[in-house]
């Protein structure tokens, strides 16, 4: 007997094993579950708000805040609205973030390079710095600096450094540029920026000529001359035109019988402690990032540069560092983001940052709305950092941009 030939017919996969159907089902189910959870959560909250008579909504934003803000860099009165007060607090956080990022990057690069130094003791000192400050919570460090500053002598007996810097338990006062006329100052800042751009163009052009012809054209020197010269020229012209210089340096002076310090710029204790803590803490992370970045550059690169006769400093500056930047930038940006978020600990040391103002606000306005707003502000700040990072990344990527 010969079996009838079995005919194989392809009947397709069953519906429940069809990959596209499974994928769609997973997506629909997860979307429904998440949406249902969110709806349930907020519906319950809405119910509780009505039931327990909790204030809600955003109408408070146009009400007067009626509470002073300890430290602020843009003008603020107690009669200003909640919205404006939130803006003032956000500007405080933004200023701390920008100043902290600049200082922490500088210190971090310094420590990171020191960590890689061929000098044993310098390298070990940098390691101790990194391992200690990176491993201790920022809050503990902030409290430590807070009580250090608190233990400084009061204003009248405070330290005076070089006759211009006053250090006491109220903070640090230092000389600071002030603009008598904001418009003139802004015009000069604009012109100065133009001068810098012009200097950059001169540098590029002369460097190109130098590399093409081999004749020394002193690109950096000429660029500095152009920038400084045109900046100074703009300053002189503006001073003659308006009869007053765009900026003057205001020096702090003790006044009156209590020695209160007027003039200059005073970084008050809260700001000082917060900046000190943030910079020292974040620099330890940045140092590790810089170290890893420089180490990621192949050994052959540095060796080749040294073989070509570049000094160690020039090897680092012109060969290793530019290549390391590619590796350094993404984690560096994430540290900037962390610094910005960590500035929310300012309230613990008496600085009126966004979070501490928000917490004070909850006494007179609905907490949920306030915290929704400040989380939005923090998210916006984070996105700004990511945007800057992405732009920079695009420029330094292999083969891209340039």
């Amino acid at each position, binding site marked *: 007997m010969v079996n009838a030939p079995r005919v194989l017919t392809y009947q397709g996969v069953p519906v429940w094993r069809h990959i596209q159907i499974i*994928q769609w089902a*997973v*997506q*629909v189910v*997860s*979307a429904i579950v*998440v949406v249902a959870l969110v709806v*349930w*959560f*907020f519906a*319950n*909250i809405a119910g*509780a*708000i009505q039931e*327990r008579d*909790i204030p809600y909504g955003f109408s408070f934003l146009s009400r007067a805040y009626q509470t002073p803000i300890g430290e602020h860099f843009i003008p603020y009165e107690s009669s200003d609205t909640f919205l404006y007060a939130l803006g003032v607090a956000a500007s405080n956080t933004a200023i701390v973030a920008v100043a902290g990022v600049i200082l922490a990057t500088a210190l971090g690069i310094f420590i990171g390079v020191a960590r890689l*130094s*061929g*000098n*044993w*003791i*310098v390298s070990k*000192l940098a390691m101790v710095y990194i*391992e*200690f400050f990176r*491993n*201790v*919570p*920022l*809050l*503990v*460090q902030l*409290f*430590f600096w807070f*009580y*250090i500053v*608190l*233990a400084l002598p009061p204003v009248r007996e405070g330290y005076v450094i070089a006759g211009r810097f006053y250090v006491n338990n109220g903070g640090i006062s230092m000389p600071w540029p002030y603009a008598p006329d904001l418009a003139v100052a802004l015009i000069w800042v604009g012109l100065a920026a133009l001068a810098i751009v012009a200097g950059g163009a001169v540098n590029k052009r002369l460097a190109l000529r130098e590399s093409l012809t081999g004749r020394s054209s002193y690109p950096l020197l000429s660029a500095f001359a152009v920038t400084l010269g045109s900046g100074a020229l703009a300053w002189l012209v503006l001073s003659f035109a308006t009869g007053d210089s765009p900026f003057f340096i205001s020096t702090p002076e003790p006044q009156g019988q209590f020695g209160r310090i007027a003039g200059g710029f005073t970084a008050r204790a809260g700001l000082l402690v917060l900046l000190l803590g943030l910079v020292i803490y974040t620099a330890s992370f940045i140092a590790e990032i810089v170290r890893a970045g420089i180490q990621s550059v192949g050994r052959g690169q540095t060796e080749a540069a040294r073989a070509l006769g570049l000094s160690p400093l020039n090897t680092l500056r012109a060969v290793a560092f530019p290549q390391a930047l590619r590796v350094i930038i993404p984690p560096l940006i994430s540290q900037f*983001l962390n610094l910005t*978020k*960590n500035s*929310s*600990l300012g309230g*613990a040391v008496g600085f009126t940052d966004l*979070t501490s103002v*928000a*917490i004070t606000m*909850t006494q007179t306005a609905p*907490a*949920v709305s306030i*915290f929704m707003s*400040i*989380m939005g502000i*923090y*998210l916006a700040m*984070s*996105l700004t950092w990511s945007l800057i990072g992405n732009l920079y990344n695009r420029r330094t990527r292999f083969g891209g941009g340039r």
Partner: protein
Amino acid sequence: MAAQSAPAAEPLPPPRSEVGVIGWLHANLFNTWYNGVLTVISLAALFLALGFALKWAFMSADWIVVVKLGGRFIIGPYNTEVACPGQNCFWRPQVSLLMVIFLTGMAWGLSGNRTARNIALLFAGVASAFAFLPYSLEAMGWDVRLLLLANLPAVAAGWAVSRYTPLGNGVRIALLGGLVFLLILALLRGLPGTPWLPSVSVIYWGGLMLNLILAVSGITLSLPIGIALALGRRSELPVVKALCVAFIEVFRGVPLITLLFMSQVLVPLAFPEDFPQNSLFRAGVVITLFSSAYMAENVRGGLQSLHFGQAEAARALGLAGWQTTLLISLPQALRNVIPAIVGQFIGLFKDTSLVYIIGMLDMVAIGRTFIQGNPEFLVNARETFVFLALVFWIFTYGMSYISGKVEEHLGVGQR
């Protein structure tokens, strides 16, 4: 030829300046003139700083706050009269400690290597050394001291149990660890209505105990959640991907203390008023979720570092998608990012100090509130925070030390 007939000349010894101590000094400290200058400056700075620090620590510093707070730093107000009326509840954290030490002993017995032994013995040794603290017997009774001393037999018992019983197996010890953690939570919480184990509200849990409870629960849960989020973010399903990206970016974009504050204000509203919930649980959930968003990015970095050939080879061998992920991609990805993961664990441990914002009394908050409440100790604030910094540093540095050992064991960077 002369060269063949004459015996080969002994090579000259290297110059004195290139070997031994002098050679090392020359190579590492004085190889160029600027390095010499740097060395001298750093040495001067080091001696000044060390001299100042030592003089301060042993001559002028007064560690009275640390001595006074002693046990408060470790368990917070747990055994006070308000928390535990009518009896001393100190034995409950102590028995919890015994269980933890027992587990460390088991881990030592399981791995059997020197690092594990040193760590286990160090833990047990330090814990039992606390029994000899020079407090008076009223301040620290015999029962407390004996329970502390029991840590030494506990570590030995753990070692013996994992050596000579079927419990000595990785999976079982891990399960036992989870069980012990839950048991500790139950023991600390107590049973309502029982006279011998009265319930202690979580608002009285504090000190290092609170930091560790939050850190341990956060660490064990944030890694799996983070892995899931990372896989979700790399998924080809747009909805799943969008949900994961939204979660990660929102939790990474805002400060932890605003999330903690929100959880305190918002979450109670979402549940009925009589629903059992507490601030410790909420804080734990928020810290875990916050950390898992970061963990997801670390794991994603590890997954991206893999060559696509790995996954392709696995698929070509006939492994299903989930098998490829679980057996091929994830193990390699996780191994590549151990430092980042441990860094995140350390970050999580440090972040547990932020629970002060919702009024919980962790180790830092204990010190801070004591100084604020007793202005006569204001001058000793520095000592307090130096002490706290050292305690945190010991734990975090220990974590990175262990991770280094694990990396060595797994041969990261070798293969």
